[in-house]
């Protein structure tokens, strides 16, 4: 078997369900959602503003749109499927924000959360608790400000470093430790996604 044959065989095995979706196999559609559903939602969240309630709708739109293309047999190179999905996510998020008549400030998005649903309220309260726990591991005000500028103000690393007079290594340490600690807190609280 040549290297090309091996690659083709591996792709056929890895993406065999793509062809089966075009043939109307419902189980293959389940495999598609099982394989990419979590990733699509994670990336939709990343492309949206924090806490945007449109995330779930956009996730559904992306999965449904890609599935329609797969059913139609329009994706001929299965190996290109991840890139196609990523591009679909980016387009969907971009279209969503373009379609909104005026800029929705982060605070306004948060107002949509507040008091809108008991489950949302509980989730917000849990996140608030986790954030407070995270803050206890960041006693230095400047380190908190690093996180605020990077995540809240969406300043890039160089901008944060320049304005706070810190170097990139310090930035990395603060953000890296905060991420790791927050992930531990999520796990401890049973709030991690799976």
């Amino acid at each position: 078997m040549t290297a090309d044959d091996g690659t083709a065989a591996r792709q056929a095995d890895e993406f065999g369900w793509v062809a089966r979706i075009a043939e109307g196999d419902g189980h293959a559609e389940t495999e598609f959602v099982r394989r990419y559903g979590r990733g699509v939602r994670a990336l939709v969240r990343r492309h949206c503003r924090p806490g945007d309630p449109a995330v779930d709708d956009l996730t559904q739109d992306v999965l449904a749109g890609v599935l329609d293309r797969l059913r139609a047999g329009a994706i001929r190179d299965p190996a290109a499927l991840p890139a196609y999905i990523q591009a679909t996510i980016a387009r969907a998020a971009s279209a969503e924000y373009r379609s909104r008549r005026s800029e929705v400030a982060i605070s306004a998005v948060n107002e949509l959360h507040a008091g809108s649903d008991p489950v949302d309220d509980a989730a917000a309260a849990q996140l608030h608790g986790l954030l407070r726990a995270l803050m206890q591991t960041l006693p230095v005000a400047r380190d908190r400000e690093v996180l605020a500028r990077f995540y809240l103000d969406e300043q890039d690393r160089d901008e944060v470093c320049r304005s706070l007079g810190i170097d990139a290594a310090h930035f990395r340490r603060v953000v890296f430790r905060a991420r790791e600690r927050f992930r531990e807190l999520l796990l401890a609280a049973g709030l991690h996604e799976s």
Partner: protein
Amino acid sequence: MNAGTSPHMAAWLESAWLARYLDRRLDADETAWFEAYLLDKPDLLAAVEADNTMRDAIAIDPATLRSSAAPEALAPFAGAAPRGAHRWLRRAGLAAVLALGVGIGAFVQRAPWPARGDGGVIANPERVVFDTMRGENTPPLVQHRASRSRYVFVEVAVPPTATDVHLRRGQRDETLVVSPEGFVSFLFDTQDADEKTPLVVDYAVDGRRHAQVVAVGQLTGEKS
């Protein structure tokens, strides 16, 4: 039905990509490529989801983050890191050296991944780790490449207290960042291999400058 995921790149390289992705240090093409790559990888998705959730939490309650950030506490400070951080760096650096350079390493300030057109994204280049600070006299640790990349990912251990680290070659001069593991790293283009012009990593420790020479020959196939 195949329940697996698409192939992974080397773990150390994947971690480096992830760190740069989360730090928003990838350009648009690199971001699109990496997002497509991580779509079906639960371990990477877990890290992205945690970062997403932290961002959400901060947005929900920005006051918690900023309530104690008094202006005087935010005054810029000189130098790299506080003394406590240096102590932590020292321990981390020593651990990394003892572990023979398993550290991921931070990247140089410029975009380390050359533009597409050379066979696409560098999925798994050769990796050369100078895990002691004795320079060219000590053979480096080499992880052979799994791709046809012409680039070599080079990591060099420096003293944990090193500051103002530069990579110099001829007239070129780039600032490097010391990773929490005590390494600086950069990509070396083997097609730019002028062996007469050495690569020099120089840095300051306690106000004195030190230089570490990386022999180009060790990066271009004369490593043993």
